[in-house]
């Protein structure tokens, strides 16, 4: 590449990088609003930003006390997790004063508009009851001795005439399907109602009621049955969180103990990891990158500049992706995923530099050393990112909470890191190469011959 072309391209890229840096880290007013930077716009989870604490007392109406507290906490934790909360805290609290015997559960979650309704759904008492019939005013209990629901799933929003409808499916077990198919056989239509707690009970919650809107799940002769071959598919014109709560309760039923849900105490709670944890973690990550760049510059001079440009692209695009990809909330797992991605990217750069140095030391020209060095570095660098990607895929699929967030951050970081090391770093190396005169390239890039 010619020197002039190289200077023009570097100038353009420098302007782009400067703009990305400003967008990533600077905060400034725009009109009446404030621009908060990519970093400032990242959504932090409960462990980093705090949230709400809900404390609820065990009702005196319970026949039995909670004997296995650990099991109870796990049950509640599963229910909170099923509602999509990444990090949270579930604790059982009893006074140390033996004269007081209140048993309380405290659930701390990220601050959202629906948190209090979510907690009420998590602590709702009762078993699932199913009622069905061929007329809206004559339904009776069905599935009394049968485990009815195999799986309920929230299938997302669809839009019709400008209105959003939240879809969900309920897959019945083999036994329930068999019973339901017998009930439906020969009927012109069939209605279903599902409640948490017995229908008519003061504390019962109606989860699904096709009788109320005269909506049949099955109509003989119709092509639009909601019920088909053991699966029920419906849409509600309500908020997504309402349907997600219902799906959670269909999957898990209610808990075995009654809590005073009308007397839930709520409070704002600070970040359990510490108020400044996120800020200090970001500073440490930045410091790590700066330290690595200093070491590369000391050892490999001009490559320090190449690494600087590459890491700017890496960091700014990484931050952008955290806010551009919908639904990402960063918790401590995400920070560790980012740390590992940075380490792998820096490691990839170091491996590439080592190969280039070796090729130059063995007698190749600078250009040939670049070309061959990058080629030799391809396999180990790609292998590092492949294992990172595989780990992130399977931990994403099989785990939840902090580990899932780690997986997301690592997946984004691995793909981006591979792109930066294999393409961006090479590109900047090629752009900087013509800037130094051929006789000075060795010194500029800190290369040495074997006999030096």
């Amino acid at each position, binding site marked *: 590449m010619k020197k002039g072309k190289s200077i023009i391209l570097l100038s353009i890229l420098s302007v782009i990088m400067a703009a990305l840096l400003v967008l990533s880290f600077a905060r400034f007013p725009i009109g009446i609003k404030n621009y908060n930077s990519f970093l400032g716009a990242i959504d932090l989870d409960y462990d980093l930003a705090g949230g709400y604490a809900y404390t609820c007392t065990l009702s005196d109406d319970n026949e039995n006390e909670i004997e296995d507290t650990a099991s109870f906490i796990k049950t509640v934790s599963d229910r909170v997790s099923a509602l999509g909360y990444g990090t949270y805290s579930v604790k059982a*609290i009893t006074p140390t004063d033996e004269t007081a015997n209140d048993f309380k559960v405290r659930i701390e979650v990220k601050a959202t508009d629906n948190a209090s309704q979510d907690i009420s759904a998590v602590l709702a008492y009762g078993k699932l009851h199913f009622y069905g019939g061929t007329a809206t005013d004559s339904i009776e209990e069905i599935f009394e001795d049968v485990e009815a629901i195999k799986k309920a799933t929230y299938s997302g929003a669809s839009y019709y005439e400008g209105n959003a409808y939240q879809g969900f499916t309920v897959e019945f077990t083999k036994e329930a399907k068999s019973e339901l198919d017998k009930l439906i056989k020969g009927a012109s239509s069939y209605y279903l109602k599902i409640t948490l707690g017995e229908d008519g009970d003061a504390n019962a919650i109606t989860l699904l009621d096709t009788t109320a809107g005269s909506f049949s799940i099955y109509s003989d002769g119709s092509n639009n049955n909601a019920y088909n071959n053991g699966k029920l598919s419906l849409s509600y014109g309500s908020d997504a969180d309402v349907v997600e709560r219902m799906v959670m309760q269909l999957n898990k039923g209610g808990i075995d103990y009654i809590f005073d849900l009308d007397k839930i105490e709520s409070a704002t709670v*600070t970040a359990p990891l*510490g108020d400044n944890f996120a800020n*200090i973690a970001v500073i*440490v990550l930045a410091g790590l990158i700066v330290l690595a760049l200093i070491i590369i510059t000391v050892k490999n001079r001009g490559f320090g500049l190449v690494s600087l440009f590459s890491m700017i692209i890496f960091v700014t695009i990484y931050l952008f992706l955290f806010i551009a990809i919908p639904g990402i909330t960063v918790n401590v797992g995400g920070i560790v995923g980012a740390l590992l991605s940075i380490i792998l990217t820096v490691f990839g750069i170091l491996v590439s530099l080592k190969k280039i140095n070796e090729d130059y030391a063995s007698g190749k020209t600078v250009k040939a050393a670049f070309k061959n060095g990058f080629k030799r570095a391809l396999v180990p660098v790609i292998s590092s990112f492949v294992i990172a990607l595989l780990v992130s895929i399977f931990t994403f699929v099989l785990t939840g909470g902090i580990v899932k967030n780690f997986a997301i951050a690592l997946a984004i970081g691995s793909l981006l890191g591979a792109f930066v090391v294999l393409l961006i770093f090479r590109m900047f190396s090629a752009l900087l190469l013509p800037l130094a005169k051929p006789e000075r390239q060795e010194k500029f890039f800190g290369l040495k011959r074997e006999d030096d």
Partner: protein
Amino acid sequence: MKFSFVKKFKLFAIIALVIAIAGMVFLGVWGFNNTVDYKDAYELQVSINQYTPTSNTLEVSKDAINDYFKDNDLNSVDYAQTFEGVGVTFVYKFSKDVSVNVETLTQALQTALDTKAEVKGLTASVNCYKVSAVGTENLGFTILALAIALVLFFIYLLFVEKIKSALTLIISTVVSAILYLSVICLIRFPLNPLAGVGLAFAFVFASSLTSVLVNRFKENAKLFTDLSAEEIADKSVKSCIGGFVLILAILFIACLACVIFGPINLKLIAIKLFIGALVSEFASITFAPAILASLGKINK
């Protein structure tokens, strides 16, 4: 450097075995250790009935509480703050029952509030609670995910590298994962938070280091055909160790910064991740060259 990693393999293997066995014994006897948020603990909740951001309620109250703790030799392992309506509650967490004299602390706090004009008239109340919690991460599923990833990576390496490279990587990575958990159990370091994440971190780190080492061995085997597999393995480690140590040094400095300047949880996380990096480097540097040398001999 005349030191031979391959020749010293027996020593390294014994060290690894001792650590692993000791770690498993500790695990069997005491189980995992967790921070106070993930196990049964005690909480002291100190509530002040009014709070405004402009007043120094927080500072006066915290000072009074800290004075009480100091006088009674109490060390809180963690601290949180909740805001209920117009009041504030300080939550101090203890890993054992500290038997705080509620009345004495309430009186001390009330006296402190009454002596300062800005917060005079506010009411303090103190409650002690026993708190039950469990570790929230499912380590089993994380281990399953890592195992599946490892199997698929093994298949990938069969195509890209040779079978000995793939085997070396599997063994080094598994050793690093076992050593990580063993060291954590041995030094009774809290497993939660970041139980699965710490393990995955060590796992990926070890795999990356070993894949670089393995690639180096392959290159050296082509270049130095007159050398034995042992000598090639040693040569490969020595040419990679500079970069490995550099990464570890950078991580050490970052960890040190967290320990010096960070809150307690950041300290714990930083140390845990550094342990993960350290055992990964140990597993890669000590096991990988020996396995490559042995497999190299077999193939000859």
